[in-house]
């Protein structure tokens, strides 16, 4: 979706302002928000893609007015509501008022190390051959899906070059919406800055994205 998350090339946000000796967390609640988000994800009710879509579906004013852990917290509340684990009156009162949906699993402390070490690999084996090979010229599709996509606006409708074929990966555009993993070939596609930004682009700059095959047409 053309949401607030799609930031590449936007202007007006000011300097980066890295913080010297930045602490890992800026408040104690951020630690809990991190842990709760990962623990809830481990229930297996939603995917990373659905999580990302939920975060980017926050109203733009809310998204831009929130720190990243605030975005995570607001999104985890929505995910829990959508999947029937909690109800609004529970969130507003801060109390369990009734039983809700039951998860496939609950992450226990003893299993945390193994779960984090395992992660959630997204590569898959597919039977169809890749359409492109390194060196091929391609053009990204000019699309504006209302659902989740990982093709940023700045990289749509652009001429680029396949730099590497990465194998097949779960397709976020379907997976985020419960429409299956639909794994497809993934490529690193590189663009000259001039082909993205046009006049005045940095002549020394190239930008790459990792793009699924269905984002690409031969050029």
């Amino acid at each position, binding site marked *: 979706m053309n949401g607030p998350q799609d930031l590449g090339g936007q202007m007006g946000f000011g300097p*980066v302002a890295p913080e010297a000796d*930045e602490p890992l967390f800026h408040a104690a*609640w951020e630690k809990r928000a991190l*842990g709760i988000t990962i623990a809830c994800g481990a229930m297996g009710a939603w995917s990373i893609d659905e999580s*990302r879509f939920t975060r980017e579906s926050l109203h733009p004013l809310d998204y831009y007015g929130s720190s990243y852990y605030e975005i995570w917290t607001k999104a985890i509340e929505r995910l829990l509501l959508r999947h029937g684990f909690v109800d609004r009156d529970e969130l507003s009162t801060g109390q369990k008022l009734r039983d809700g949906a039951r998860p496939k699993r*609950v992450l*226990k402390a003893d299993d945390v190390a193994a779960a984090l070490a395992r992660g959630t690999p997204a590569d898959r084996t597919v039977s169809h051959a890749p359409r492109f090979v390194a060196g091929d010229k391609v053009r990204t599709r000019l699309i504006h899906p209302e659902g989740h996509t990982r093709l940023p606006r700045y990289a749509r409708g652009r001429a680029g070059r396949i730099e590497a074929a990465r194998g097949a990966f779960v397709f976020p555009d379907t997976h985020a919406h419960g429409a299956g993993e639909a794994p497809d070939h993934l490529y690193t596609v590189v663009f000259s800055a001039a082909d*993205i930004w046009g006049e005045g682009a940095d002549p020394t700059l190239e930008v790459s994205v*990792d793009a699924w095959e269905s984002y690409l047409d031969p050029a």
Partner: protein
Amino acid sequence: MPHDPHSHGHAGDHGNHGHSDNELDGMAARVKALETILTDKGLIDPAAVDAIIETYETRVGPRNGARVVAKAWSDPAYADWLKQDATAAIDALGYSGRQGEHMQAVFNTPETHNLVVCTLCSCYPWSVLGLPPVWYKSPPYRSRAVIDPRGVLAEFGVVLAADRKIRVWDSTAELRYLVVPMRPSGTEGWDADALAPLVTRDSMIGAGLVHSPGDDA
């Protein structure tokens, strides 16, 4: 120091003032309520939440990535492996897992400087760098890294030669990128243990350079 008011938790940000643990502001109350409900419903185990936090506070952080880089600098065969199959080469040092399942290592050269960003969210190689800093997740960096990387780098004090190529990697899929900075001069003959402390987090994102020992620049 200039601060974008939205780059930190504006409601919950007390980290710079040293009293972050005793504030029960809006976000603290909201997260506490959420944890209480989830715990009472048996959906999360608070001890598991503790274990997750402890992992990223004590075990998974940029020292992991620094050891990867230092080994690549001091062991050409390892550097080749890292170039060909970063996931396996990094796993061999014991660093694997969440947000590092599919790794790519990109090597800075005298011709090309690499910079990593996630314009769409906050994708970052947790297994080697730990949790991302606030600036990496915030709109100023995510918006400008792909259009004005030299301007961004200048804000980190990094000025590249005008003819140095810049390659920006936007992490739009599940591949996670680790920049292998150039080994600084003055470290000839150093082994990996001696090299690793020189390698900064920012240099492995591409937002910094590794300086020669004794050089404070």
